[in-house]
């Protein structure tokens, strides 16, 4: 059974149909890149999987390990192992970064029937993971994303991901707004997390990210459906030729 199974998914936002019959199957251990022109529904897919309120599923479905994903509350999805690295991580002034992350980890652990992690153990874990993300320790004492640069925000997302150890990681345009050094750090963080029981869905506009995170599959999303799938060579071809030829072939 696939870890994530999306079947003929239709979804709308503010009365506009965005996803129009998207199907995708992702197995544990795989990395799937979702590419496509602007407005094709990439971010909508990410948000629907995470359960954001304003996204209305009108038909089709999605399961995680065979369980209906769309029926769950956002926090239940998180407990089940879904993690969304946000395109625009929101600032929560006054709320300490450490505090939020520990609360999150303990909520996830509680849902898995594990004990709460002590503050001391948590700090140890957090420091270790931060080092990998080349983040300054002072980071932990700041407000959540408060005054972070674009790069810091994205790094923080991957850092949180590494602490929470989700099973399905959805990265929504994590490469946007990153300079090349930050991009490398983020990619290394993701690569370090690759494992046989974890899957990644990378939503990205550019091939650039895929130079550093090598995908097993590349899909082109356009008009709310996946119109072409292939391996990493497809990404290179898109980089060289743009999207138009795929769109034309799909329309033909």
């Amino acid at each position: 059974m696939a870890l994530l199974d999306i079947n003929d998914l239709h979804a709308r936002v503010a009365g506009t149909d965005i996803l129009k019959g998207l199907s995708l199957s992702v197995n544990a251990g795989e990395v799937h890149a979702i590419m496509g022109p602007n407005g094709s529904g990439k971010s909508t897919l990410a948000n629907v999987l995470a359960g954001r309120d304003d996204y209305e599923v009108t038909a089709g479905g999605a399961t995680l390990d065979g369980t209906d994903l769309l029926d769950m509350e956002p926090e239940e999805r998180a407990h089940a192992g879904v993690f969304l690295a946000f395109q625009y991580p929101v600032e929560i002034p006054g709320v300490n970064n450490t505090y939020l992350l520990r609360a999150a980890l303990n909520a996830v652990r509680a849902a898995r029937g594990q004990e709460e992690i002590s503050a001391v153990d948590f700090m140890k874990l957090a420091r270790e993971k931060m080092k990998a993300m080349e983040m300054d320790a002072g980071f932990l004492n700041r407000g959540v994303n408060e005054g972070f640069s674009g790069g810091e925000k994205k790094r923080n997302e991957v850092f949180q991901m590494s602490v929470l150890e989700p099973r399905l990681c959805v990265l929504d345009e994590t490469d946007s707004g990153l300079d090349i050094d930050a991009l490398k750090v983020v990619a290394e963080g993701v690569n370090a997390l690759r494992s046989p029981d974890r899957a990644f869905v990378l939503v990205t506009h550019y091939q650039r990210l895929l130079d550093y995170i090598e995908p097993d599959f590349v899909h082109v999303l356009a008009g709310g459906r996946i119109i072409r799938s292939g391996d990493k060579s497809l990404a290179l071809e898109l980089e060289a030729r743009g999207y138009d030829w795929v769109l034309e072939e799909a329309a033909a």
Partner: protein
Amino acid sequence: MSSSNAEVEAFVDKKYKHGWVTDIESDTFPPGLDENVIRAISARKGEPQFMLEWRLKAFETWKQMAEPEWAHVDYPKIDYQAISYFSAPKSDADKPKSLDEVDPKLLETYDKLGIPLHERARLAGVAVDAVFDSVSVTTTFRDKLAEAGVIFCSFSEAVREHPELVQKYLGSVVPRSDNYFAALNSAVFSDGSFVYIPKGVRCPMELSTYFRINELNTGQFERTLIVADEGSHVSYLEGCTAPMRDENQLHAAVVELVALEGAEIKYSTVQNWYPGDENGKGGIYNFVTKRGDCRGDDSKISWTQVETGSAITWKYPSCILRGKNTVGEFYSVAVTNNLQQADTGTKMIHIGEGSTSTIVSKGISAGRANQSYRGLVKVLPQAKGARNYTQCDSLLIGKECGAHTFPYMEVRNASAKVEHEATTSRIADDQLFYCRQRGISEEDAVNLIVNGFCKDVFRELPMEFAVEAQALLNVSLEGAVG
């Protein structure tokens, strides 16, 4: 001796041979307010003559005054003749015998707040002999204070035992005629706390109403007077995070603080009275006058409050910065949920040269609640180099609540510096979704955000109070989202 004199005089003065006056020995006076009621209260408490006269003058003043209507609150007209102005403590026979007889909802709240088991009985008003032995704790506490020369007792006791101090300072900060509710309190006050810290003494512990040996059921018209003599220091905690059982709807308290040269008073409040049900029914009306007088040079008064209770709150803890280089502070978190209404803020009156004040007010509104911040910063012509910094933030949860800010500034000295910052924000759906995506429930997410918002104020609370206040906020906002 003076106390029995007052009693005799009260009886001599009584105008009616029959009617309610004959009830003077009963536990609760019948409803109604006139001069005889005041005489009877004073007599019941065995007060000296000066105290009775003071009350009567206050009553005369009160009768001339009109209830204020400027506050941004709305409530049915109070019938002051329908209230009983004296009730003796309930006898143990009337109280619940054990926690089994207490409202399970109240117990549930205690549980959420993590109140220790032996505490719950006391708070729920279980008969004293059934309560965990708190008397010995109190006694040790009193011995230690006596050693330092600190006077800490009920107001009634102070009137009897230390009349010279009471007479000297009572009404010197909040005069009888100050406002409608203060005048009413001055006439009929039931009891409260009295604190005197002698010269140069640093009070060896935090004083808390919790340890006050006092009659129960004194909350309705409470009177507190704290005097910090030259160079002394005291931290006073009022209230309790746990909801107190209380049968009086109208509360009109007065708190007066006097800080002499070089003295420092830190006054922290956690107020969690019954706010009424979801429809605002049955909640407490809280009309309080709190004022501190930095009378001596280099003195400091700091108010910190966390207000989550009451249906209506009308409260402006203030500082009169009279001495040179005096410091006034006001840190406040006020939470209103459901139909609660709060009109609260502070006044900083700069008289002394080089006086400084800081105001940090955090208002949180949820449900259909309404909240106003009302602040006055007044710099008099002689207050050279006075400084004020005001920060006033409102956080809205949901779409039906309101927050209003009414800052007043009167600066009459050109060398003064006054700063005001204000923000209003709403807990954004984005923020909630972010937390939920990380696995945190919606309710916990709200708590997280609210606690972050209040951090600057919680930091000012004594340690254990801060932890409790945080838990209290969470309980107060339960069900605020969704």
